[in-house]
């Protein structure tokens, strides 16, 4: 559909994919757009491969069905790429992938990478043994796609992150993700 950007967020249960989709939508609203964040719920558990979806558009979209084809695929942990059929998830050869990885990954699609795990490690953003990788990746999304602004993502954080020092650290993580994302080759 024209005017709509459809996101699929791929990760493992517990990595914050659902929250990432909601932050994206909250940021879109601050940018004067419309958005929708859809979790894919099953009998999911920590560690299993999970998907969540988001739609962002200039005007409200009436759809509620799942996103079948991604314009932007956000990958919270790179090894899940081996467990899914990427071609089935992507809308076209021009669709993009933004992956948490220290080095380039070749997928056949324009693939951007950001070392989100190292960013969260450096900032000490580790909760219950899990690195918070969603916020650096959201920074990368702002930089690569321009669908939402960096400022709006940062301004949305207090709605989702409880304590003030965590808002500060996640703000830093978003900024570092924005600055350090690289790649884009097919």
């Amino acid at each position, binding site marked *: *559909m024209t005017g709509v950007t459809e996101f699929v967020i791929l990760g493992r249960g517990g990595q914050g994919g659902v929250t990432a*989709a*909601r932050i994206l*939508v*909250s940021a879109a*609203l601050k940018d004067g757009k*419309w*958005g*929708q*964040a*859809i*979790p894919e*719920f099953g009998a999911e558990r920590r560690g299993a491969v999970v998907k969540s979806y988001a739609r962002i558009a200039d005007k*409200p*979209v*009436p*759809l*509620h*069905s*799942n996103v*079948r084809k991604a314009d932007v695929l956000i990958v919270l942990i790179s090894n899940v790429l081996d467990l899914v059929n990427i071609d089935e998830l992507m809308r076209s050869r021009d669709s993009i992938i933004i992956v948490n990885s220290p080095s380039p990954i070749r997928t056949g699609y324009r693939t951007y990478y950001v070392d989100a795990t190292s960013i969260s490690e450096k900032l000490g953003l580790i909760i219950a043994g899990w690195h918070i990788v969603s916020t650096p990746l959201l920074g990368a999304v702002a930089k690569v796609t321009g669908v939402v602004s960096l400022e709006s993502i940062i301004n949305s954080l207090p*709605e989702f992150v409880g304590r003030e020092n965590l808002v500060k650290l996640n703000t830093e993580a978003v900024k570092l993700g924005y600055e350090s994302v690289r790649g884009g080759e097919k």
Partner: protein
Amino acid sequence: MSSQVPLAKQARKVLVGDHAVAEAVKLAKVNIVSAYPITPQTLIVERISEMIEKGELRADYVRVESEFAALATVYGAAAGGARAFTATSSHGLFYMYEMLWWAAASRVPLVMAVVTRALGPPWNIHDEHTDILAMRDSGWIIGMAQNVQEAFDMTLTAFKISENEKVLLPVAVGLDGFILSHTAEPLDVPSQEDVDTWLPPRNPRIPYVIEPGGEAITMGNLPGNDVYHAILKKYMDESMEAAKKVIAEVYDEYSKLTGRNYGVLTECYKCSDAKYLAVSMGAWSGDILNAVERLRNEGYPIGLLRIRYIRPFPEEDIGGWINGMKGVIIFDRDYSAGMGGVLASEISGLVPSSISFEGVLAGLGGFDVSADEFKTIMRDFVDKTEREGLVKIRKYWYIPKIER
């Protein structure tokens, strides 16, 4: 549209459907909430408990031992004059089935959110409308929302509809499990002050109040003459009829408050010049609308009739729109065993024998149906009718291929 009344100031938030319902319950200043958790409803009562704990809502919160007790508690509270709310899904709704009838026939105003979910076995937490449609004979007014905003609006208006002297029937607000309950969307929320001017506290004496030292009344007793039973049902039927007008009035006032206009019992999109009509209810109506718009671009003269309230049954709306059509295709996300789709069954009585008809059973157990799939199903129906003349397909089981 002329608007002499200034619109209320509204705050824009991003909320999931369940939290939007909780927000409406807070603004309605309910006096009592009973809570028994069941997925995908649980977020509603969890959020309400947080609101009460933070002091945002001054209400009694009763953690009950079962769904039967959940409804019995708010039923009793409503008979005592309180504004009351509860919420449930699926098996929880069926566990309170008997109480549905007691509450409705006792004519107490109540609001309950029903977050729709399939019934097991097999165990399934995903969306289906069979649960809420099983309420349809019990005397509840039953609505189904299309999006998060409508779930909020339907909840807030439900109190005003239910408490209206001409209605005095409980209202169920339906929202699709996960598809609305857990999906976050922008939502415009009026301020408490503005809601207060529009929705005053409930008058506890309408229809009656049970109170210590109060007037002696009997309710639910074994009457000496069985004819009283028939009289009560006839009164309820008259109230259901009256509710059609009351719902229209309530939404008219509400549109002046919020600027949001809805059809009353139904909404028809692209229907005025349509030769074919699709009929649906709930969240997937938006996906069907998307398919209808694309079919229009390809020259297919089809419109979408969306049912907002299935009780009272919008017979006049549906009959009126079907009149003059060449074909009607109905999408059911529910199944009445031995019969077929519930909407198809109810609506088929309004379809003349000269009109093509197809009842589609899809999305059962929550499987996702895309706008592309709706488009193919509707296009095939229109093409078949144009090719073969009259088509009568009572049940089309739309079941995607799976790997086994």
